């Protein structure tokens, strides 16, 4: 339905382009040079006035239709129906009305609900027709307005270009809107979570058992939201990943920039970057299929029990994924050290190794640190590897052979399946998401700051 409306508006807009062009040519009896702007611009101007306001109207309508109908519906309920109900119960009533209106009747809905459902259905139909009517009348109004302005002196090109600039500004604002959307949605849901669970418990509690009864009579744990074990697990896995990635990435970068033949460098670098191009779900499966069983078998032969979803397996595979980040960023940092420092070191009779460890690495250290911070933020935010290979139960341990859980694993497990936005279990995921967003953002800002400052130093 909505799709057809939008298609219709686009078709109308295309039609008005042709119309505008024709009208412009007709206005000068076919002598095009007498027009201020070429006919195409007249057409584009009319098309923009037909298409843009009406399509915007449809989108805004779609956003607000639900809220408006819900409010009207609440007003229309017999007085006293919603007395003494809190917000969640009102939401429940509304969703019951909606599902009855959609024809999914469970049990025997009350007469009030049935009547409301009928009203809801009627209003939906009215709203739909009203939207179509308004959208097309706005489009026609735009057509009337724009096409009446067409005359040989009209500066259609300027008009069309102004509209285009406006559209481009709107597009670049999407980046801000996205960030705003992320911050607001996370903050809003997290605040609702902290209404129910105290921030003190969340940030300092040692017990994470988010399975709380959703329906009455369901047997689950008490539901406690102390996120320390989750944070600790995230740090443990990230630490293991960095222990794998930093030495391999750094030594690989040193070899490639300082020792390797140009040909070797040209073949090895893209191969390392392949590691960054592999989707993380593939790494997750690799961890489950190959790495975890191999570790387990190794543990059995030396008599150490290793859990099948140990932090070690997930962290090690994550480290492999991160190698290219470290190696390419260290590579850049080492290559950015001025030639003069290198030459000075060789002139003093230092070997290549001494030049690297005593001159290049200290000089490149800020850049390398920036790269490592970026990699840490990548590791903390990485999701699929840990969802597939790490544990779900939050346990506070520093033993890498035991399963631990991470922030991202908890977000995914709390939100998979049907979710209701009014229980702490769902909202907890958003609180974790907020922490994740803030931490990774801080790490990124810090890293970019270090890298930029260091680059300025040598430029």
């Amino acid at each position: 339905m909505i799709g057809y409306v939008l298609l219709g508006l686009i078709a109308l807009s295309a039609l008005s382009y042709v119309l505008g062009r024709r009208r412009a040519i007709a206005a000068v009896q076919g002598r095009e040079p007498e027009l201020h702007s070429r006919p195409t611009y007249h057409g584009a101007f009319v098309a923009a006035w037909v298409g843009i306001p009406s399509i915007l109207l449809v989108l805004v309508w779609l956003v607000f239709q639900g809220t408006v109908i819900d409010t009207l519906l609440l007003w229309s309920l017999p007085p006293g129906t919603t007395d003494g109900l809190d917000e969640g119960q009102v939401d429940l009533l509304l969703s019951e009305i909606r599902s009855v209106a959609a024809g999914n009747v469970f049990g025997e809905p009350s007469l009030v609900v049935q009547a409301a459902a009928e009203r809801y259905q009627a209003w939906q139909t009215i709203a739909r027709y009203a939207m179509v009517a308004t959208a097309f009348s706005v489009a026609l109004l735009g057509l009337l307005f724009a096409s009446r302005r067409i005359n040989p002196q009209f500066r259609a090109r300027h008009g069309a270009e102004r509209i285009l600039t406006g559209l481009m500004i709107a597009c670049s604002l999407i980046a801000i809107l996205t960030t705003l959307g992320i911050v607001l949605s996370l903050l809003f849901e997290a605040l609702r979570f902290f209404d129910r669970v105290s921030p003190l418990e969340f940030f300092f509690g040692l017990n994470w058992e988010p399975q709380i009864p959703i329906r009455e009579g369901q047997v689950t744990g008490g539901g406690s939201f102390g996120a320390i074990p989750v944070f600790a697990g995230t740090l443990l896995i990230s630490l293991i990943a960095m222990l794998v990635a930093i030495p391999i990435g750094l030594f690989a970068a040193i070899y490639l920039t300082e020792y390797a033949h140009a040909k070797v460098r040209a073949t090895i670098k893209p191969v390392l970057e392949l590691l960054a191009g592999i989707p993380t779900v593939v790494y997750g499966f690799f961890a489950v299929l190959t790495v975890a069983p191999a570790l387990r078998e190794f543990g059995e032969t030396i008599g150490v029990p290793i859990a099948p979803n140990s932090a070690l397996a997930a962290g090690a595979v994550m480290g492999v994924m991160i190698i290219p980040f470290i190696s390419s960023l260290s590579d850049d940092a080492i290559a950015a050290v001025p030639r003069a420092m290198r030459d000075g070191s060789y002139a003093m009779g230092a070997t290549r190794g001494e030049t690297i460890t005593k001159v290049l690495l200290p000089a490149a250290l800020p850049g390398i640190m920036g790269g490592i911070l970026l990699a840490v933020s990548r590791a903390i935010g990485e999701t699929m590897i840990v969802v597939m290979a790490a544990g779900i139960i939050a346990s506070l341990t520093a033993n890498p052979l035991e399963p631990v859980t991470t922030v991202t694993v908890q977000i995914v497990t709390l939100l998979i399946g049907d979710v209701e936005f009014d229980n702490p279990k769902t909202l907890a995921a958003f609180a974790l998401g907020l922490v994740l967003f803030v931490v990774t953002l801080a790490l990124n800002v810090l890293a970019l700051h270090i890298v930029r400052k260091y680059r300025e130093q040598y430029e």
Partner: protein
Amino acid sequence: MSDAQTINRQPRAANWASDAARRRVRRRYAADRRLQAYGIIAIALAVGLLGILVTSLVSTGFPAFVQTKVDLAIYVDPSKVDPKDPANGNFRALVREALAPFVPEGATDKQKIDVTKILTSDAPYIVRDYVVDHPDTVGKTVTLPIAVSDPYDQLQKGVIPKEVDALSWSQVRYFERLQTRGVVAEEGGRTSLKLEVYVDPARIAAGPPPSGDFAAVARDSLQAYLPDVHDTALFAMLADDAPDALANRVAEDPSLIGKTAQVIFPVAKPFAQLANGESPKVLNPRFTSTQIEAFDTMVAKGVVHMPFNWELFFNADSRFPERAGLAGAVTGSFYALLVCFLLSFPIGIAAAIYLEEFAPKNRLTDLIEVNINNLAAVPSVVFGLLGLAVFLGYFGLPRSAPLVGGMVLSLMTLPTIIIATRAALKAVPPSIREAALGIGASKHQVILHHVLPLAMPGILTGTIIGMAQALGETAPLLLIGMNAFIPSVESMGILEPATSLPTQIYSWADSPERGFVSRTSAAILVLLGFLVVMNIVAITLRQMFERKW
């Protein structure tokens, strides 16, 4: 110390030829070589790990590209299938009759049903679909290739063995420990255990005939030899008639009750084989002997073959690994990427043109640039939370729909496209702009007519790379529920529940059936194949159209 003093100090003449100096130099160069070696080891590790990853995926995924099938000659019995209404025929019975030639003689009804389990559980529906499409086959015999069920597929491919070790590693260890203690002996033609048994009067009554729980007493006496073992698998060592040995002994000599006596217990058959130096085998518990006999008959008659598994590409998902395919996942990914492209390509180009060509240097544009750079580094799961809270929660868009998936992915690809477009625009030399401006073009005309077409190859390359990243994204799609079970492709649409390639990989990886392990690897190979093709297209595009000014 003043500078003058430093300079005046006479340096000691260095003897570069001394042994100590030589050693120092050798040590320094050894350190240099060591560093080089570390670098080579690091690269070898990274490349080796990539190699292991690819090899393990290829070796597990390769078998899924073929599928074991049985050419089944099916007589479409008019008494079971009504030619006027073929969809409602009794196809289960048709399949059972078609299997009759392979069923061993004298099989019971239960065994006959077991034999039908060699074929996929979908077999009757495959026959039904064929007969519905070809109604003229009623009353004739048709030969259809029908997929076998997962265990037989794996058996034929050699992934799982027909016979497994009868004894666990620890059972073998327990037996070896008994052997070293000299308890195991050949008695009366049977391998036996000579155990000291305390015949507990509390548990065994004298009779006659003697009664009581002889099995428990026998077990306890065995346990006494291996007190550290707490494993019921130990008792599998005693043959079924072992308690009788004790009962007979007590019946012969009732005075043993209350005393400790040596009793000779026969050992179960697999352990006896072990004692004779054989490695005992039993039939894999996933098969029954009737099934294996029937399957061997099929193989002997030459109806079992392994064609290329086209169904992997043309079937949608299924609960049965032998019938599961990727069509639904590929379609879902296609829809989501289409939405993603339609949104992020125009928006990304428009934003990049504004920021690169028009934007004045002010707070707002600075803010936009910082935002774009930061968005590129936000974890993907956070975008999933955004999609869940805003697109599903606030706007009320349908859950699991490719539309929402594409919208979330487009927010993630946008920074990539904007950054690539800006770089491409920057690379167009100013002389082009100046020439166009010089002959009277407006700024918009310069950009739309001259700069943008020249920058297009770079923009397309960046877009394809962004799309390739979006194709592999999993976490945001999981959060908005784009991992639905889609058993048929026909019902899919941009607003209908869908799945995608990476989320399908995730769901299959979670499935317990052995066959899905192989399918998952195959799905990953397909995904990687798409990524490789997209990247090759991007690189070729760059090389073909990139101009050096």
